[in-house]
C-alpha cells in the first residue's frame, strides 16, 4: 500500500488514477498512523510553494513528513512536493522543509532557447522535456533514456551537487530529479507523462515493496 499525502495543494486524484491503472494499492491520507503504515509515501504538489508550505504547517504535516523521512520511509516528491523538500524557495520567499540542502529559484526569462540567443524562454516551463541522469537511479529502470516527461513550473530546484540525480535543459541545464536512494524528488509530473511516467511510479512502488519485505 502506498500513501498519497493529503493536503490542499496536492493533485492527489491524478496520482491516484495513475496508481490505480497500474494496479498499485493506494490511499489518500493525512493520518500519521496510516502514513507510517504505508510502504511508501507520494508527496504531490501544485500551485505556489508558499501556499503549499502554509497548508503543510497548518495541518502539522511538516513534522509528520520529516519524521517519516527520519524513519527512512521511502518518499517520492512531485513538482511543488519536490521543490519544498529543499531549504528554501524564492517563490513567496518560502522557508521550506529543509530535508535536502538547496533552494528553488525562478527561471530567468533572459535565458534563451536557442544558441543564437534570439528566442527568450517562456516562463512557466510547460510541456515535454527530456531528463539526463547524472547518477544511476532505480526509478528510471526500464525507461528509455530518450523518453520525455511533462513539466509545468516557473521555479526550478537547485540542490547541493551531490543530490543532483537528473538534469533537464531549458535555457540552461537545471536539476529535474534530486534526492538520494529512497528519498526521491521529481520536478515533472510522472502521472501525466505517459508510459515512462507510469513506469517510474511502478519502479517507486517496487522499491517500496522491496524495502517493506526486507524489514
Amino acid at each position, binding site marked *: 500500500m502506498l500513501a498519497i499525502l493529503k493536503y490542499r495543494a496536492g493533485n492527489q486524484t491524478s496520482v491516484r488514477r495513475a496508481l490505480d491503472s497500474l494496479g498499485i494499492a493506494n490511499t489518500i491520507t493525512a493520518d500519521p498512523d496510516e502514513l507510517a503504515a504505508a510502504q511508501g509515501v507520494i508527496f504531490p504538489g501544485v500551485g505556489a510553494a508558499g501556499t503549499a508550505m502554509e497548508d503543510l504547517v497548518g495541518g502539522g504535516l511538516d513534522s509528520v513528513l520529516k519524521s517519516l523521512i527520519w524513519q527512512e520511509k521511502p518518499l517520492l516528491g512531485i513538482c511543488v512536493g519536490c521543490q519544498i523538500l529543499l531549504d528554501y524557495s524564492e517563490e513567496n520567499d518560502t522557508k521550506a522543509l529543509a530535508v535536502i540542502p538547496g533552494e528553488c529559484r525562478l527561471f530567468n526569462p533572459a535565458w534563451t532557447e536557442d544558441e543564437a540567443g534570439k528566442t527568450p524562454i517562456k516562463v512557466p516551463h510547460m510541456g515535454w522535456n527530456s531528463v539526463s541522469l547524472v547518477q544511476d537511479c532505480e526509478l528510471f529502470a526500464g525507461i528509455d533514456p*530518450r523518453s520525455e516527461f511533462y513539466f509545468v513550473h516557473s521555479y526550478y530546484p537547485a540542490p547541493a551537487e551531490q543530490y543532483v540525480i537528473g538534469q533537464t535543459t531549458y535555457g540552461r541545464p537545471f536539476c529535474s530529479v534530486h534526492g538520494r536512494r529512497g528519498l526521491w524528488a521529481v520536478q515533472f509530473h510522472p502521472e501525466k507523462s505517459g508510459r515512462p511516467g507510469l513506469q517510474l511510479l511502478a519502479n517507486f512502488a517496487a522499491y517500496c515493496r522491496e524495502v517493506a519485505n526486507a524489514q
Partner: protein
Amino acid sequence: MLSKRIIPCLDVRDGKLTKGVKFKGNVDIGDPVESARHYYEQGADEIVFYDITASSEGRGIFLDVVEKVASQIFIPFSVGGGINTLEDMRAVLLAGAEKVSVNSGAVKNPDVISQGAAAFGAQCVVLGMDVKRVPKSEAIPSGFEVVIHGGRKPTGLDAVDWARTGEALGAGEICLNSIDADGTKEGYDLELTRTIVQSVRIPVIASGGAGNPQHMAEAFTKAGASAALIASIVHYGEYTISGVKEHIAAQGVKMRMVW
C-alpha cells in the same frame, strides 16, 4: 529543450464524437474515450476535447466522458466549449482535465480568466481565440478581429489587444484558431500566428488549416508556435500522430517520440 507539441482535437456532442475517428482498417470509432486512448498511445502530447453540447443533460454526459478519459489517459488534456463561469471551470478540472479553455465566455466576461487563474493557476487556463481577417482600421489595427459563436459574430476586438489582455488577466496559454484557414487544409494562417506569438510571452497553439505535416512544421519554424492543433488529417486515418511527428522531426524540430 522543450518539445513542440502535437495536439489532436476531438469534438464531442452528447458524449459522442461528432465525426467518428477512422483508424487502421477504417474502423469508425465514435467513442471519445477510445479515440483519445488511441491518440495517447500513438504519441499525442495533449488532447483537446471540445464540447458542442447545448443541453444541460448532455453536459452531464460530457463530464462522465472527462472522468473516463482521466482514468485511462496519462497525458494532459484540456476541455473547452460552453465554459462561461468559474463553476464551469471547476467542474471539468475536478472531473480530471488538466486545463480548461475559455473562448466566447471570456469575451463576454473577461474576469473569468483572472478568477480561473487565481483559483487554479495560470497553467490551467487556456484562452481560446477565433480570429478572422478584416480590413485594417483604427478599431482593428492588426487586421485580425476576434469573433465568437463559431465565427459568426464579430466582437470589435483586435486579436493582438485581446491576446495581450488575456495574458495580463492570467491566461497561461493561447489557442489561436483562424476562421479563414479552418477547414481549408491549406495550412495555418502563419502571419496571424506569428503576429500573436510576437505579441505575448505565453505559449501559442496554432489551429485551423492543417492539411499535412509540412503545415505543422511551418507553424513551428516560420511562425514560432509552441504547439499545433490538428483534427481531420488524423481523424480520417490519412496520417498518424507518429508519422506526422517523424516528418516534423526530420526538419530539426524537437518532437517527443514514444519509446
